[in-house]
């Protein structure tokens, strides 16, 4: 462990949070590098949270040009076309995030997630992807797993008033306080691929319906070649057909996945800012935990639905 002290400026700025997670955790945070891709509401919330927390560096990827729709839940970009017109989401958000905390290095990378190689991903301690296809999710996850160093991987997606976070910390050791002593804990995580191929019958009985509904919609988008969130209520009949096929293959009754829930996920393509704040907040906390090696991390799915108000952790592993 390095014994480098925090500067006076850092101590003053981070006073309240050092009282939560300690000086060691703060030091580790300030040396960590995080990559995010897919800059919509939830990820924006996440970026704000970890920049405030004093992460070492944050790299943004999102070449999409800003549009009114894309920035509907974005508080980093003024809704003025003469300001955002012709610029990418990553550029615009980067400029704004720099102001939040001058001690954090914020930078922008151009290109497709799938085009980057090992030497690029190796620079990071945590990678968060959103708004990308199932194929890209899986391929980034696999790439990270092949690196010589352990890089934490997260996906986050919000649909309607629901949100889902997936976490892969591979083989992870952390410390936690139990009564007066600190104990070491060990956890093994499956990849996204490994987790999602587990037969539904093999899962515990009470896994949240939202988990299954998200898998159906995700599969639908992949088959149809849609971008994530490019759905509407008009897709419901096709999705119900897909539900039937999947449920048959999994030997579960199709009423297992409520139609109303699927309908909401397909229709609600415009972001709901309170859910972005909640899910982006939970994700921020998770990344801070994983980097600092302190506190119980989520294993391995977090699901939130504003309709019932529950934020649930599901362990989808063998």
């Amino acid at each position, binding site marked *: 462990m390095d014994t480098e002290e925090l500067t*006076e400026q850092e*101590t*003053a*700025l*981070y*006073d*309240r*949070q*050092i*009282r*939560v*997670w*300690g*000086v060691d955790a703060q030091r580790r945070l300030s040396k960590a590098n995080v990559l995010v891709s897919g800059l919509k*509401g939830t990820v924006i*919330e996440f970026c*704000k*949270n970890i920049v*405030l927390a*004093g992460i070492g560096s944050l790299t943004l990827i999102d070449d999409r040009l800003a549009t009114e729709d894309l920035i*509907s*839940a974005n*508080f*980093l970009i*003024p809704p*003025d076309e003469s300001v955002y017109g012709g610029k990418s989401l990553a550029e615009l958000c980067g400029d704004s995030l720099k102001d*939040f*905390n*001058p001690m954090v290095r914020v930078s922008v990378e151009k290109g497709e997630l799938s085009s980057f190689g090992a030497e690029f991903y190796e620079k990071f301690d945590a990678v968060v992807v959103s708004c990308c296809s199932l194929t890209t999710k899986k391929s980034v996850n696999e790439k990270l797993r092949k690196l010589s160093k352990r890089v934490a991987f997260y996906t986050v997606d919000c649909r*309607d008033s629901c949100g889902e976070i997936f976490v892969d910390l591979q083989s992870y050791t952390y410390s936690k306080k139990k009564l*007066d002593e600190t104990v070491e804990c060990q956890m093994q995580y499956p990849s996204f691929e490994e987790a999602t191929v587990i037969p539904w019958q093999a899962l515990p009985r*009470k896994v949240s*319906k939202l988990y299954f509904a998200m898998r159906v919609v995700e599969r639908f988008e992949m088959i149809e070649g849609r971008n994530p969130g490019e759905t509407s209520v008009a897709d419901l009949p096709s999705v119900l057909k897909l539900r039937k096929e999947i449920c048959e293959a999994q030997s579960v009754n199709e*009423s297992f996945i*409520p139609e*109303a*829930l699927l309908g909401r996920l397909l229709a609600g393509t415009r972001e*709901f*800012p*309170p*859910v*972005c*704040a*909640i899910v982006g*907040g*939970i994700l*921020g*906390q998770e990344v*801070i935990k994983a980097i600092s090696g302190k*506190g119980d991390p*989520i294993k391995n799915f*977090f699901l939130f639905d*504003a*309709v*019932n*108000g*529950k*934020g649930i*952790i*599901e362990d989808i592993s063998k």
Partner: protein
Amino acid sequence: MASEEQLYAIKGSKVLMVGAGGIGCELLKTLALSGFQDIHIIDMDTIEVSNLNRQFLFRQSHVGQSKAKVARDAVLKFRPHIKITPYHANVKDPDFNVDFFKQFNVVLNGLDNLDARRHVNRLCLAADVPLVESGTTGFLGQVTVHVKGKTECYECQPKPAPKSYPVCTITSTPSKFVHCIVWAKDLLFAKLFGDKNQANDLNVRSSDAAGSSEPADNVFERKTDEKIEQYGRRIFDHVFGYNIEVALSNEETWKNRNRPKPLYSRDVLSDELTQPNGDVEKGKTDDPASISAMTSLGLKNPQEIWSLKENSKVFLEALKLFFVKREKDIGNLSFDKDDQLAVEFVTAAANIRAASFGIPLHSLFEAKGIAGNIVHAVATTNAIIAGLIVIEAIKVLQWDASSYRMTYCLEHPSRKMLLMPVEPFEPNKSCYVCSETPLSLEINTHRSKLRDFVEKIVKAKLGMNLPLIMHGSALLYEAGDDLDEDMVANYAANLEKVLFELPSPVKSGTILTVEDLQQELICNINIKHREEFDEEKEPDGMLLSGWTQAIRPEKENANSVGNGESASDASQAVAVELEEGNEMVEVPAEIPAAKKRKLSDISVTRSSVTRIAETNSNKIVEELDEDDDDIVMLDDDGFSEIGKKRKSQ
């Protein structure tokens, strides 16, 4: 996303936010993004550096400016067309009366102290406006909904009183570091630098115990021509040496305790008077914020635990700097966690006392947390809680009472949940705030003065701001600016009388009516005379009961958490609100307290948990066929334990 009906309700609403701090910044942002068009926001605070790690609407360049105003400007940058009305003012100002509150569809609290929360609760009840209440500490948080007649009000369950310590523990027998901090802050610091007219237990000790020739007060006065170094050493020797010797002479006290060790400056420091690097010149204008004993002594790391010698140097140096550089402040200082020199002085004094009593020493960082009642705070929890507030606010705007929830944000999952919704409780029928239930007070009517009743009960316990006290039709006391001189004199005289000797005597069986015109709260108190009170257990010398004994007697620890900044200032001489669950402050005896707090923060009665499960399966249509909703009600170990504990009511 929000449905059409939701958007309609949002767009037509007018909301009041109280607090533009940790939760407030997040809340204002989320409200604006969600489509709210007319938001009013009250906050009396100005921006400080330690806010910037989470109050993301503020920048370094805003330090010192009004939170409400800067927050407004920052949000208008990304939502220029909405209306935000800021008030840089205290929510308890008379301008914010019932009529002011009536203009809003819902009030959203992001406050950091019990006092203001109770005040807003009363105004919301009086104005019949729904209130969404919130609080966070570290990774924990909660959101509750209070709608008159439908759910419990914020005060239906008694709130934890500030932790207070018996006077003698502080003045003579400290056993924990926090006792030393309270002594250093509320007694020694107040004595040396505060209002000289205020009663202070420090002088009681130093005079009566010793029978010394000079009046105790003079000990703390700097004599004319006394060099500041001599004065500092004299104070040091008096409080850490002489006073301890005096205390030791009372053998009875130390029968079952470790005897403290008197400390004198000549033993701790060599005889040479401390000469810091660089002379301090009188009259040089410095920024008071940059005056620091640590700086002049070359101590850099606030996380480091100083030796006894270092603490002694800091003590003398800080004392000297106060007299040389901040002389005009002396006599009207009260401890402020943001006053560097004050924190240094209190840290050093507490540590020297701790050394004397064999208590482990602490760093300035830790001491500051304890002395300033600093509630630790992170951005993420505030963001989550703000999101939950907006979700509840939208339900309130649609009068969707069956789906109101109180939600707990947990650090460790309970029944797999990190965010746990619970159906709100019904109003407590014996709540003196929302149900006009009389209270009863046991008090010695022959010894307690009206002033004790006003300060310790009406203000401290009932949280009234501008009270009026009546006995039948006789007006005994009234507070306010618009009273004529005769009345003021009359009330002032009444305050000093014992209850039994008031113009209309108060005795066993008397019913007093206490009213706050601003809060529109009125309650009756049945008086019972009682001769004796236990000094340790009932330090107020009176016992208020009524709603406190209703329904959930053991929930003393639950339900109120601060939002970020300092918790409310403890006004009593020896009272301090302890910080909960602070991992950094390793005062052993505080850890169980922290645990208990966390547990009770998430506790809910079994029946309510069952209720929510039933409600969900009945009413949330799309989940009719789900079986995962019952997860809340089954008995997990931790949960049923809490359930049992609380079920006993």
